[in-house]
């Protein structure tokens, strides 16, 4: 087997009459960190939501670890997979949301142990031990028993990262993880993400943080109007972007 974690080919997505993804292809190998940048409405968020089938796709195919996501082959045709199978595949794909989406009725620790215990069936004690290690790793060793309502945005997002990591996913998706945060706390979330990237986590990050992209990304994708219009190393984007749209976009956000 190759080291390919994500294999997305010609992904199409429509919302009614709106054509959001017009044939996006992306290959991500193990240990890579890929940043997706682009103006709002370019389809970058929709694309990563398709990767764990929070959105159905209308064309193309997506494989994670060599398995179709959301669909299976029947008589040569792709049909939507059973709910149970989709749920099982999602355990291998971690997702961090723009608005954290922590479970407000559970403590930080319970947020992290919830799925390992009740989805993977891990013994409670093991799950708790693991959650404590993860929460410590994201710098929240003193917040185990705190409810999300009492945590700052940056702390909530770090719990959310720990929650996703607890499933030991093959791929981590970050959907604008710092866009809902105050500027002074984006740093603490980004540094956690940088450590993950450095430790060899396979991640796809939709972000406007070019500083993060420069420090952590192996490759950067520029999306516009439902397509990846340019790809390259972070240096390429800073020094010599080719596409006119990319130049415009970068001049606005840098």
């Amino acid at each position: 087997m190759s080291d390919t974690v994500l294999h997305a080919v010609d992904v199409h997505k429509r919302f009614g009459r709106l054509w959001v993804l017009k044939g996006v292809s992306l290959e991500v190998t193990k240990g890579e960190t890929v940043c997706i940048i682009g103006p709002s409405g370019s389809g970058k968020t929709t694309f990563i939501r398709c990767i764990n089938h929070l959105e159905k796709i209308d064309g193309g195919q997506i494989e994670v670890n060599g398995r179709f996501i959301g669909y299976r082959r029947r008589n040569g045709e792709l049909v939507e997979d059973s709910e149970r199978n989709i749920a099982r595949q999602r355990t291998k794909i971690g997702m961090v949301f723009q608005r954290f989406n922590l479970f407000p009725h559970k403590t930080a620790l319970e947020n992290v142990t919830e799925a390992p215990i009740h989805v993977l069936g891990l013994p409670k004690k093991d799950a708790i031990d693991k959650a404590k290690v993860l929460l410590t790793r994201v710098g929240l060793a003193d917040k185990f028993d705190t409810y999300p309502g009492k945590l700052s945005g940056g702390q909530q997002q770090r719990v959310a990262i720990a929650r996703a990591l607890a499933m030991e996913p093959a791929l981590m998706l970050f959907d604008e993880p710092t866009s809902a945060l105050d500027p002074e706390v984006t740093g603490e979330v980004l540094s956690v993400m940088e450590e993950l990237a450095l430790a060899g986590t396979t991640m796809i990050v939709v972000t406007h943080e070019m500083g993060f992209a420069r420090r952590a990304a192996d490759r950067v994708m520029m999306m516009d109007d439902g397509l990846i219009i340019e790809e390259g190393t972070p240096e390429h984007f800073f020094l010599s972007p080719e596409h006119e749209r990319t130049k415009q976009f970068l001049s606005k956000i840098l």
Partner: protein
Amino acid sequence: MHALVAVDLHVIWQQVFHPHSVFFRTLWATVYISVVAQAAGVLLGLLAALARVSRFAPLRWISGVYVWIFRGTPVLVQIFYVYFAFSWPTLHFGFWTIPDAAIAGIVALSINEGAYMREIIRAGIDSVDKGQMEAAKSVGMTYGKAMRRIILPQAARVIVPPLGNEFNNMMKTTSLVYTIGVFEMFAYAEQNYSQFFIADYFLAIAVWYLLLTTIWTFIQAYIERRLAVSERGEELSFRERLQAAWNPMTSWARGGGG
């Protein structure tokens, strides 16, 4: 002519503080009919609410027709129809007997209650942020597990206060099953009245209903407090809950829901 203030304190005293042993049987009937009917009503309402938010259109329609019919017709009519259209068994549990009329009454009241509970439970489910279902799915939960473990526990906080009001109503509405011959609290008062023509039997029974609903107010405040780790991470004290129960405006002002 009777006196304008027709209160016979002796009858009230007698009925409230030294009731006949038969009275306690009727009090028990009122309590068990309300509790069972409310519990079944919540269950029906939950099923109907889940049907209402289901992806399968036929389930949504069934749920809609159910609410349409049972909220749109008098509960008294429903009680009579359920009692007379079907034959109901009389159940015996040791020395406790539930007559057929009481069973018919419970069935009718719970079906009626389910229609109201559906709206309350659906509003509770709707009050939970859409991101919660996505987050639950993203860690590998199925729809059912996400509902059970993530959505409904959060919806409960929004559901419980109106549910408490529903139960308060239910305890009083049970008096209607007297009309199909269930011997409950109101029937007891009515029977005494038709024997002695003293209206104070009704006043005395009102005191008993008031006692039941007041006890319930305390129980409800306790339950809400148990549920009340709010999203802002603050807890209301028992006393604050109780105040909120007595003065609903304060609980709205707190935005207890979202």
